[in-house]
């Protein structure tokens, strides 16, 4: 208080704080006492937080507060409550058939929401967060399916995977016709051009279509079928459509034919519970390409 001096302002007749800036003085307008008391009370109140809540860091931990409050425990309780709330709905999801889920707007919304989350956690690394895929990893939005695009087929693929090592997994792969010496390099170029011609893509000049057809019939028809329409039993892609998992240019096709392809889809049975797998099947099916 020793610095607090005042004198009387001649105009207003009020005392000033004694502070002066360029000849302008600050009038002393006292705060209301109740205000000051309230202010001190808030300070006292704040001390309560130190006592009631975790506050002070110690060397290896911290003070826990009077009631052992922890925000993490709160979150755990809320998550447990959420699981409880979701529990019934997930049971309903597990009990309903895949087709019924798609017909019930509430179950569909739940399956899509749940499926989307689980997809983001488990599938997005390969298939992309929007399931748009990448080279070697199928786009799940389109209507081209290696192993079938019905709800049941999608569910089966998710459950057991492809070439995953699971007992019920999808088997079958693209052989390495070049590496294994089945076809000679010029035969590979010819059949690659023939495959391009199946879906109306341009072919190299001087390409012998008859020779290509013969090589195709001898080596490829077993899996890809007559005319290259593919076979979902063996995961053999349709070669006549516009969708190419590994690329449609000549170099990519030559690589595929000579080196073979055997992409792996892991089996999710055992890792995800059945209701979740169902939700994911419905989600993938609802992306738009499902049959």
């Amino acid at each position, binding site marked *: *208080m020793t*610095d*607090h*001096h*005042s*004198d*009387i*302002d*001649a*105009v207003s007749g*009020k*005392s*000033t*704080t*004694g502070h*002066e800036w360029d*000849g302008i*003085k600050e009038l*002393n307008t*006292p*705060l*209301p*006492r*109740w*205000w*000051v008391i309230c202010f001190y009370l808030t300070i006292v109140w704040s001390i309560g937080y130190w006592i009631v809540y975790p506050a002070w860091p110690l060397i290896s931990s911290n003070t826990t507060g009077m009631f052992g409050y922890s925000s993490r425990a709160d979150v755990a309780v809320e998550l447990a409550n959420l699981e409880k709330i979701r529990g019934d709905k997930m049971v309903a999801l597990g009990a309903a058939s895949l087709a019924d889920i*798609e*017909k019930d*707007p509430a179950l*569909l*919304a739940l399956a*899509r929401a749940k499926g989307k989350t689980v997809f983001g956690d488990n599938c997005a690394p390969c298939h*992309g*967060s*929007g*399931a*748009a895929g990448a080279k070697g990893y199928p*786009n799940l*939005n*389109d*209507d*081209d399916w290696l192993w079938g695009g019905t709800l049941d087929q999608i569910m089966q693929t998710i459950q057991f995977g492809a070439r995953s090592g699971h007992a019920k997994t999808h088997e079958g792969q693209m052989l390495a016709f070049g590496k294994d010496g089945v076809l000679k390099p010029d035969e590979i170029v010819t059949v690659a051009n023939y495959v391009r011609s199946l879906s109306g893509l341009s072919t190299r000049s001087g390409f012998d279509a008859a020779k290509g057809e013969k090589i195709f019939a001898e080596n490829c028809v077993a899996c890809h079928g007559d005319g290259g329409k593919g076979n979902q039993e063996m995961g053999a892609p*349709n070669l006549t*459509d*516009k*969708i190419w998992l590994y690329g449609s240019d000549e170099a990519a096709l030559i690589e595929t034919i000579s080196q073979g392809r055997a992409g792996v889809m892991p089996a999710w049975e055992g890792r995800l519970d059945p209701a979740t797998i169902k939700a994911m099947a419905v989600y993938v099916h*609802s*992306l*738009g*390409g499902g049959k």
Partner: protein
Amino acid sequence: MNKTVNPNELKPADDVGPLYAARKKVYPQSVSGTFRRIKWGLMAICLGVYYFLPFVRWNRGLGAPSQAVLIDLPNSRFYFFFIELWPQEVYYFTGLLIVAAVALFLMNSVGGRIWCGYLCPQTVWTDLFYAVERLIEGDRRERMKKDKSSDPMKLERISEIVLKHSIWLMIAWWTGGAWVLYFNDAPTLVKELVTFQGPMIAYIWIGILTATTYVLAGYMREQVCTYMCPWPRIQAALTDEWALNVTYRYDRGEKRTSVKKAAELRALGQQVGDCVDCYQCVAVCPTGIDIRNGPQMECIQCGLCIDACDNVMAKIGRPKRLIGYDNDINIHRRQEGKAPIYRIVRPRTIVYSAIIAAIGGFMVYMLATRSLLDVNVLHDRNPVAVKLSDGSIRNAYTVRLLNKSGYDRAIAIDVEGPVNPTMHVVGADSVTPDRPIIVIPRDSTSELRLLVTAPAENNPEKSIPVRFHVMDIGLGVAASATDNFVAP
């Protein structure tokens, strides 16, 4: 001019300014007159509306709330008689707040702090609490005497105090009780509350508002206006030289004398002021100020000093309105012997009125023409487009349909933009593949995943604007939303 003081030369005795000021309790005296009557009337209207509005019923049909004014938080709806607002229509409240703000400006430029003096909840409830206090403890002098008295309390005094606080608390409790009724069906909630089956949150809010009403109207009173409310500061910037404020007409009042002295001087033919220094204006003031010191921030302009002064002027046979709604311009004009002029209509008030009319009119127009069917469309971002096995392009959209009406609607969706489009709604039966038909329950929203497919050869552009039309196939009401159809 102040003389500059070197702080180092000051002695402790010079240190006269207190840092903290104790509140000087105000004991407003009862008064009767025009403005007191206006205040009673407005108080009755304001409190009547506040306490009883939740009980007003309004028929909206089966299944919908029948309360005229209801803020339905769990279902995110606001009901006001024939209007039902959804959360996304909150801009109507923005408009209302703008109109309210400009209305305050207009009031201020016409008649000063009309809001503070007559309508503000703080003023209304404080006025009511003062009335209770006066009824039980007596008028100004008695209350001052009782507060100052150092005699040991007698039973009578104790019962007075207990009675006063009980009535205050009952008013405060009713205030809190009325508040929660705006958030739930009032008759049901009242029944639940009195049988102690009401929701805990209701009791908590009643408790909070009981406490604030009791403390703010019973204890804080004018301190709220002086120290806590920003409006006195703002209004000082809004007033102008033509605004009519509660003003002591010093041209008439000065020089102040006593009644006796004034009569003597008048008999001698001398000029004397009408103010007889009776301090009635100070005695009735709910903020404890002296209006004769000119416009002050503490003054809420309730007009009670006008009544008090008028009563005195009538008694001593002088003209009324020594204190009245006036401004400095007229005081100076009268001093110069000219007639006063009142300029209510002037650019400032015209502009404020125009703003109120424009925004109010716009809001009414928007409200009257708003559609009870709406559609929002959000394009899938990942992937934006999908190439199908036959080479055609498919885009996916999240479509949100809003049915704000009180009945279910069957909605047909049409798309316009890409050539030869086909549509599919995920989960919906494909009975009408080219024109999906969806039923949206009343007063709700439906979110759909809509797939639009179009041949690539017919739609060579990278991006085509699309417009989705949704139409109520029964009533023909339509809405639309735009987006783009994108090639991969």
